[in-house]
């Protein structure tokens, strides 16, 4: 092989650069986020926690299409409590602290959902009231 030394050392440098974020943090993904459990003490969500963790975005999209497109606003009953389909009507009722619940994982995963550009969080509502 021609230029063996140059190629191999180049490859090593390339691999090191690409994996920079991994080894720079000492092969540690950082502390896992601990989203706050509902402050009002509710134990049951509309689906099991594992499913919610993985698929809450799909569920929200389904609710959105049901409510807006199909006029299907059927209430969802969880442990005897009725919830309307919606971020503000269902989720925020229990997970009332967006900053300690939603943001904790979204920040960790570096995703920026645009939900709260329109949907109102309790914090935002409190801010408005303080004015």
């Amino acid at each position, binding site marked *: 092989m021609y230029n063996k030394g140059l190629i191999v050392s180049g490859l090593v440098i390339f691999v090191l650069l690409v994996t920079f974020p991994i080894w720079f943090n000492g092969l540690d993904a950082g502390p896992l986020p601990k989203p706050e459990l509902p402050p009002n003490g509710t134990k049951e969500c509309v689906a099991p926690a594992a499913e919610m963790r993985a698929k809450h975005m799909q569920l929200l999209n389904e609710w959105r299409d049901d409510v*807006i497109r199909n006029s299907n*606003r059927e209430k969802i009953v969880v442990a005897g409590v009725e919830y309307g389909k919606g971020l*503000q009507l269902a989720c925020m009722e229990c997970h009332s602290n967006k900053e300690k619940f939603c943001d904790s994982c979204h920040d960790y995963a570096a995703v920026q959902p645009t939900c709260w550009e*329109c949907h109102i969080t309790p914090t*935002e509502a409190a801010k408005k009231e303080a004015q």
Partner: protein
Amino acid sequence: MDKKRRKFLKMAGATVLAGISAPTIVKLSSNHAVAASGGDHAAPAAAHGEADAHHGEEQSSGVQLGMVIDMRKFYDDELLLDKAIAACHKVHNVPDIPERKSEIKWIWKTGYHNAFPDHSHNLRSQTIENSPFPVLCNHCENPSCVKACPTKATFKHEKNGIVSMDYHRCIGCRFCMAACPYGARSFNWQDPRPFIKEYNLQFPTRGRGVVEKCNFCSERLALGLEPACVEACKGSGAIVFGDLNDPHSEVREVLNKEFTIQRKPAAGTRPSVFYIV
């Protein structure tokens, strides 16, 4: 060698011919199939032609929600309209932006000559001339905004005839605003939140860069409530709301009894909001 070349040329020629003629043959044979079942197709085609001929007056089937606004009630009570507007804008988190260029309107006041340019003439009564007219989205039977929307963010509900918006899907192109003959749509040039005095936590706000308009209180109807503006005028009978396709509904009774006008009927959108002037 020579023989092989001859054979090759023959094969190539035949292949090219087959390739060119294949689509034509397929088309011809499928045309035969259409012609064979032509008898069945002729009848619906004729029916279509008939429907087109009556385009202006044809009534849709199913529920078509609409309202009659009795202006005689608003002439007498100047505060009634303000109350209706305030009620609507409060439940829907509609911002109050003072600058006219960027204001957001779901239901608002306008002059007679603006609301009814087709019905204007030069010798109008003083009452009509000086009274504000409530105007809102007409939830047309044949909405031009729906046809203009490239993302289907605005659409007509099959169940109740409401012209609805999915703000998640709006890309802010404003084609619908250009298409609407009634100016019933507003664009959010900025974040509307600083201009909202009080939030209704049961309803979202809108974000920067989407178009918004009256939704005939879809969310309230689902709860069995009347639209906010109708409820605000309760007792006065100024706004009657209901199914325009139900011959026994209250709206239809009013429509049968009174002389009503629509905004810009010549636009062919068949508005669902009627006015008693």
